[in-house]
């Protein structure tokens, strides 16, 4: 086997197994013909192959995306109601209740709008979900008590996302009963988070020393992966490892508990895992498309 063939065979492993089995040898023959006389794959062919592998491997995205999107809507849709229930069941002292009751309508309406959006989406009424969310945004604008600039932008972003989802015909994977059960659990989760927060348990913070240890571990892994490369490549891999090890864990913690979405991420991921597990147990996991999705112009073929 020539060095070129050896290297192309290694690159072809990037393709999904079913595609490699069907077209791998044919593809290899063409690549060897096009790069005849070389010992290493040309950058042009190698990059094209990597791009194709990424496109083919992303065919699972629509199914996973719709699960994640629905899980996000469940998490977001139950936040308001969950928090409100928590307010009434321990968030405030009984002598604060008159004031809480006074502001309840201003909190209940957005909460119901969020919940309505999620439930409508789960039941397949996608346009109604979009309409409810737009109605909620209108309420935010006209009701000063509920007005919150961050929530306003958040809702606007969500409406755009819902618009895209409606246009692209995303649907909530069945069974719907799992999703409706997840709605109830998510409400309880929001209540539980409120109660947890009042009992002196604080959000985890990564100590700097742990951060540097993680950075060293990530750098060691990166160097190990690049050990057969040239020294400059190994140095770059080590730097990327340090950066990834130092930056990613704190960002992940912030995403889970902190400022970038807070618990919303945790409940979204939890819901997605729970429902996917339920679908797996009931044999209802969404299928991957039969054929690779390669539509649209393959725009890298023109010119140099």
């Amino acid at each position, binding site marked *: 086997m020539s060095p070129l063939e050896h290297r192309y065979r290694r690159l072809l492993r990037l393709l999904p197994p079913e595609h490699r089995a069907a077209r791998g040898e044919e593809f290899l023959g063409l690549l060897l013909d096009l790069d005849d006389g070389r010992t290493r794959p040309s950058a042009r062919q190698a990059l*094209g192959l990597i791009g194709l592998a990424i496109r083919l491997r992303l065919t699972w995205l629509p199914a996973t995306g719709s699960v994640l999107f629905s899980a996000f809507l469940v998490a977001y849709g139950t936040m308001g109601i969950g928090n409100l229930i928590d307010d009434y069941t321990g968030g405030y002292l009984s002598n604060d209740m008159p004031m809480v009751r006074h502001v309840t309508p201003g909190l209940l309406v957005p909460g119901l709008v969020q919940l309505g959006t999620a439930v409508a989406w789960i039941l397949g009424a996608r346009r109604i979900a979009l309409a409810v969310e737009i109605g909620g945004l209108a309420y935010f604008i006209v009701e000063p008590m509920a007005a919150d600039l961050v929530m306003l932008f958040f809702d606007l972003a969500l409406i755009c996302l819902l618009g895209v989802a409606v246009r692209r015909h995303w649907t909530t994977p069945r069974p719907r009963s799992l999703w409706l059960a997840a709605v109830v659990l998510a409400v309880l989760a929001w209540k539980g988070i409120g109660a947890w927060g009042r009992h002196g348990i604080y959000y985890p913070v990564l100590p700097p020393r742990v951060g540097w240890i993680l950075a060293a571990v990530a750098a060691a892994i990166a160097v190990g992966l690049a050990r057969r490369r040239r020294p400059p490549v190994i140095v770059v891999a080590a730097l990327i490892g340090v950066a990834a090890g130092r930056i990613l864990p704190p960002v992940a913690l912030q995403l889970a508990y902190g400022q970038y979405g807070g618990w919303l991420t945790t409940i979204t991921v939890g819901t997605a895992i729970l429902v996917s597990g339920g679908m797996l147990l009931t044999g209802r996991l969404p299928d991957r498309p039969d054929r690779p999705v390669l*539509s649209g112009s*393959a725009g890298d073929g023109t*010119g140099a």
Partner: protein
Amino acid sequence: MDSLSEQAFLVLAALADQPRHGYALVTEVATMSEGRVHLRASTLYAVLERLTGRELVEHDHDEVDNGRLRRFYRLTDAGAAAIRTETERMTTQARAAKRRLARRDAQAAPRFGVAG
């Protein structure tokens, strides 16, 4: 029928006279486009995937040459019809563009005997 991309059209046209394998398609497309379009292997397979899916192209036979598998493709009747339709569309458009260019040239020509 959906319109064809330039690459898909060139691949179909390259298969019009005889079945060809991947490498022959890449070189034929480069020749037909006078060196302007050089297909990558990945692009060619993306195009072939789409054309096979639309039943414009089908697998003809396989050959092994110098240890390399060469898969030949041939044009289907639907593929030949697609080339004809696309060619007529392009010819009509080119004719319309030429007419307008001729009109423009006529307007730009010096008009003798007209003052001011």
